[in-house]
């Protein structure tokens, strides 16, 4: 059932990229302790660009679109063409690094929109399946080493001794243009109802 949510998200991403095919893997689900989440997602120092939203409504939780740095650059090129430019951002309080430079305001805005479209379509599909409404916040954007990005998000989730449920879907575009992951961590009280509604069984804790 998680497949359908991820399917919607990849369709949305394909459309943003001018109908280039974007594939996805079947979602992996795991219940993990907080320190285990990073290693489950990927290599800790991998440079990634992330769009993060908090989800409220019938399904509460935290969703993040993670893109390999090169993929984010390729997607920005696709979305903005020559308009993206390499002007430094005006958001001086916290410029987002991207490779050798920082992203422009227009690029930051495009990354927020990308996160918004992909995550919203994912949540909409989950909502249709479960009958629960999921409302995403305005995305926040970061670019840094994977572990630091994830840990900053997990600090918002807080610590649960029951572990956190993480749903991970790999996105793969034509060639190597798009490589990324969607991660959704339901809030603690919303874990069992989501599992029940989606008919999924997480990997048992050892």
């Amino acid at each position: 059932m998680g497949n359908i949510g991820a399917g919607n998200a990849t369709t949305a991403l394909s459309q943003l990229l001018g109908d280039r095919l974007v594939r996805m893997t079947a979602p992996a689900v795991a219940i993990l302790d907080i320190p285990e989440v990073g290693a489950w997602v990927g290599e800790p120092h991998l440079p990634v660009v992330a769009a993060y939203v908090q989800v409220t409504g019938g399904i509460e939780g935290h969703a993040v679109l993670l893109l390999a740095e090169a993929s984010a650059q390729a997607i920005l090129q696709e979305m903005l063409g020559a308009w993206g430019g390499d002007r430094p951002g005006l958001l001086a309080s916290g410029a987002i690094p991207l490779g050798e430079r920082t992203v422009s305001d227009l690029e930051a805005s495009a990354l927020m929109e990308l996160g918004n479209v992909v995550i919203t379509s994912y949540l909409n599909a989950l909502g249709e399946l479960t009958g629960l409404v999921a409302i995403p916040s305005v995305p926040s954007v970061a670019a840094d080493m994977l572990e630091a990005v994830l840990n900053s998000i997990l600090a918002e989730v807080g610590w649960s001794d029951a572990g956190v449920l993480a749903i991970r879907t790999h996105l793969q575009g034509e060639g190597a243009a798009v490589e990324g992951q969607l991660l959704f961590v339901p809030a603690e009280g919303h874990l069992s109802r989501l599992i029940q509604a989606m008919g999924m069984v997480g990997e048992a804790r050892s």
Partner: protein
Amino acid sequence: MSPASPDQATPVTVRIGELRVLKGRGVLAAIGLGSCVGVALYDPVSRVAGLAHIFLPSSQNGRLVAGAPARYADTGVPALVDAMVAAGARRERLQAKLVGGAQLFLRGDHATLEVGRRNVEAVRAALCALGIRVVAQDVGGSRGRTMRLFAETGRVVVTTLGSEAREL
């Protein structure tokens, strides 16, 4: 094979919520500090080195959590000091170096994405309560950090993506 120099020794990774103590040799590392804070304490006389990977500012109930004593700043810092004293350090000789507490995410409407700043404040308050001086720090800002603490010297090396390693 000659013995590995301290720089080449394989670091012991201190994961979120953990604390580790070494004496005289070896390297402790906290990888991918975002809003988390790495608290490095060192006693230059006994050469006891300790590193705590703090996740959140406050335990609220003040209880120490088994298996993850450094989860919170208010309980994790005293727990690190206790572990170091048990290993032969003297509290009045301890010096602190702080790394992390960044805010990686930009814009959006998350007023709460300030955990990094609050973590740093909570760590400083806990150290101050124990009379431990902060001798160096690389905190705040918007970049994720990885840190290594060398038990032989108390030296701390910080790396970020796309920058040269720097020493604290």
